[in-house]
C-alpha cells in the first residue's frame, strides 16, 4: 500500500523539472517500478518459461503433424482438431473422465467434511486420527499406488481379508465397474486428508455463540449443520471443490500404475489418453490437441464454479 501512495506522489514530482533545469530521469517512481519488477521477476521468469511458453508451444504443436522418429514436423492447420471431432475413442474417454471426476469429487468432499466434523470434537485421541488421515497426503503417489495395486489383486490383501469373513471378493482391477471404483477410492484415501485439514481449519473459525444461540432457539444438530456450519464454511467448500475438480481431471499416475486404462478402455481418462497418443503412439501433434481440449475443459469448469459462487458462497452475496 505504501508503495502505491509513494507512487502517486512520486509521479507528480517526476514531471517537475529538477534543480538546474534538466528533468531528473532516475525518479522515485522509476525506482519503485524497478523494485516492483525485480520482486516479481523470479516468479515471472518461471511462469513465462515453464507455463506460458509451453502453453503456447502446445497450441502450436496441435497445428502440426509431428513424427518424432521420421523427424518430420508438418503444418496441418486444423486437421488434428477435425480428427479429434471424429475420434471414435474420445466419447468413451470423456465418459470415463466425467465418471472419475464426479465420483472422486463427491466421495472426497463428503468424506473430508464428515471426517472434519468428527475430528472437530473435543475428544481424546482426535490428534492421532488427524495425523492418521492426513499421513497419506505426504506419501509418494507412485509408492502409494503400487502398494494398493498389490492389495487389489485377485489374490491380494483385500480379497484375503474378505475371504476370512467368508466373502468371495471380486477381481477389483479387472472388472469394468470395480476398476473405476478402485481407482477412485485409492485416490480419495490418498488425498482426503488435505481437504479434511482445510475443512477443520474452516470449522474452527465458526463462532461458538452461533451454535449456542441456535440451540436456545431449539435448532437440532442437523439444522445447525445446514444453517450455520455449511454457510460459514462455504468459501472453503468452494476452494476445495475447485482444487479437487482440477486435480481429478489431471489424474494420471494411478491409472498408469493400476489399470493402464483397462479393462477394455473403461479407465482411460483424458490425461492417460493424451499420454498414450503422444508418448506411446508417437502422435505428438494429436496429443497436443487433446491437451488443448483438457486446458479448455479445466478453464470452463473453473469459470463455472467461480461464477456460481455468488449463488451459494456465504460472503459472496
Amino acid at each position: 500500500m505504501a508503495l502505491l501512495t509513494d507512487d502517486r506522489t512520486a509521479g507528480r514530482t517526476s514531471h517537475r523539472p529538477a534543480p538546474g533545469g534538466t528533468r531528473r530521469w532516475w525518479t522515485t517512481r522509476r525506482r519503485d517500478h524497478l523494485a516492483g519488477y525485480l520482486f516479481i521477476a523470479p516468479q515471472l521468469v518461471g511462469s513465462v518459461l515453464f507455463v506460458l511458453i509451453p502453453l503456447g508451444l502446445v497450441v502450436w504443436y496441435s497445428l502440426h503433424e509431428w513424427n518424432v522418429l521420421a523427424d518430420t514436423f508438418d503444418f496441418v492447420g486444423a486437421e488434428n482438431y477435425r480428427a479429434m471431432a471424429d475420434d471414435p475413442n474420445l466419447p468413451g474417454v470423456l465418459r470415463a473422465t466425467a465418471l472419475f471426476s464426479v465420483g472422486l469429487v463427491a466421495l472426497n468432499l463428503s468424506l473430508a467434511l464428515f471426517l472434519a466434523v468428527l475430528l472437530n470434537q473435543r475428544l481424546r485421541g482426535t490428534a492421532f486420527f488427524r495425523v492418521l488421515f492426513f499421513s497419506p497426503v505426504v506419501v509418494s503417489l507412485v509408492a502409494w499406488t503400487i502398494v494398493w495395486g498389490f492389495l487389489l489383486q485377485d489374490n491380494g490383501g483385500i480379497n484375503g481379508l474378505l475371504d476370512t469373513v467368508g466373502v468371495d471378493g471380486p477381481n477389483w482391477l479387472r472388472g469394468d465397474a470395480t476398476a473405476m471404483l478402485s481407482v477412485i477410492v485409492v485416490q480419495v484415501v490418498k488425498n482426503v486428508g488435505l481437504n479434511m485439514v482445510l475443512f477443520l481449519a474452516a470449522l474452527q473459525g465458526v463462532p461458538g455463540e452461533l451454535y449456542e444461540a441456535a440451540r436456545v432457539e431449539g435448532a437440532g444438530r442437523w439444522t445447525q449443520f445446514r444453517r450455520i456450519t455449511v454457510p460459514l464454511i462455504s468459501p472453503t467448500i468452494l476452494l476445495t471443490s475447485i482444487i479437487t475438480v482440477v486435480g481429478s481431471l489431471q489424474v494420471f499416475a494411478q491409472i498408469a500404475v493400476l489399470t493402464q486404462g483397462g479393462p477394455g478402455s473403461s479407465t482411460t481418462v483424458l490425461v492417460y489418453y493424451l499420454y498414450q497418443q503422444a508418448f506411446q503412439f508417437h502422435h505428438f501433434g494429436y496429443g497436443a490437441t487433446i491437451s488443448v481440449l483438457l486446458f479448455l475443459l479445466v478453464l470452463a469448469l473453473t469459470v463455472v464454479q467461480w461464477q456460481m459462487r455468488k449463488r451459494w458462497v456465504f460472503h459472496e452475496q
Partner: protein
Amino acid sequence: MRARTTAAIAVAALLGLTACGSGDGGAGDDGPVTLRMTTWSANEAHVKLFDEIAEEYKKTHPNVTAITFDAIPFENYTTTLTTQIAGGNPPDLAWVLENAAPDFVSSGALLPLDDTLKGTDGYQFDELAPAATKLWQADGKLYGYPFSTSPFGIFVNTDLVKAAGAQSPAELIAANQWSWENAAKLASAVNAKTGKAGLVVRDFDYKGWDNLSTVWTGWGAQAWSADGKTCGFDKPEMVEAMRFLHDATFTDKAFPGPGTTADFFAGEAGLTITQISRASLLKDAKFGWDLVPLPTGPKGGYAVIGQGGLGVLKKGKHAEVAADFLAFFTNPTNSAKLAQFFPPPRTSLLTTETLAKTNPLLKPEQLQAVVIDGISTGVVKPSHTGQAELSQAVRSALDPLWKPDADVPAVLAGVCTAINPLLAK
C-alpha cells in the same frame, strides 16, 4: 513499448527453445566425442562387459573420451527412448525391441549400417543369419544389428512337478508326448496338488498379449498376415488356440487367472514360458529346474524368438563414430563375449561348444534343442508399424476374453474390428 519488448523476449525464448530441440546431427566428429547407448539392462554383469568393450575401443580411438550405457526400465523402454528423441536429446546408439523394429526401421530414424559393417576388417558380415536380420532390414539395407536373438522355451520347476506326482516334461519328451494338451494337464496337476501356479506365460499378465504367440503359433495362428494387412485373430486356428488358452485358464486352472501374480523364479509356479536369457535368474535357485522346448501344437513343433536390435540414431550428435563403435561392439570377438548373455546372430557362434562355454547353467542338449534349433526355425514375435497403437487396441479388445463366460469367437471378431482400420493404414 513495454508490451512489445515482452513479446520480443517471449519470441526469442521460444526460438531458443526450439533451436535446442532441433538437434545438430552429424556435426563435430573431429573433436573429443562422447557416446551414449540406451539399453534395457541394468544387470551388473551385462554393464561390466559393455564397459570392458568400451574401454578397449577407447584405447584405439583417443578422440572418444567416454562411452556411457544408459539403462532405461524395460516396461517403458520405447516410450522413454522416443521421448528423449522428441526432447532433442537422442542417444547415439540404442537397443530397439523387436515390436518397435518396424517403426524404427521404416521411419528413417536409424542409420544404414551395411557400409560401415562390411568395411570393418574381419567383421564377417556374411555370417549373420538371414532369419535373424530379416526384421531389421528395409530396401536391402540393414538398420539394426540383432544383438540378441533369444528363443522362448519352458523352464520347469522339477520339485513342484515331482510333488504333483506327474510325468515330467523330460519324460514326456522322451515318450514323444510333449504336446500342449499334456503340458496343460501337467500344469493343472501342479496347481491342484501343490496350490502353486501351474504355467505362467511370463510378461503376459493379461496385458502383454504378444507373448501369447509362444502358444498360438503351435496352432498355426498369427496376429496378422505376413504382409501385415489382414487380421488373423478371427481365423479358425486362432479361435481354437484361444479357446484352449481360455479353458486351460478358467476350467483347468493350468494358467493363473487375471490379477494373480506368480513368479516362477521365486518358486511360485510349476512352469514358465520365457526367453532362455532368463536362465541367469536361476543361478541361486533353491529348487530343481529344467529347460525344455515349447510343446507341440496341433500343427506340430515350432519355435518363437524375441529379438533385440542395436541401431545408430541418425539424429545423434556423432552418428558416424557411433556406427564405427557398433561395428567394434559386435565384431566376432566381442560377439563371442556377448553370447554368454545374448544369443548372437552369427552362425559360427551358434554351436553347442561355443554356447556351452558361456552358458554354464544350460546343458548342451538344452542349448541344441532350445537355442540353436529355435533360432534357425523360429518365428519372431508379432510386430508391425504403429505397433504401440495396435498393441493397445488388441489389449483393450481382448480384455472381455479373460472372463470365465467369455464368447471366444465373438471377442476375437471384435479384436479384428478394432484393429482393421489400423492395419489398413
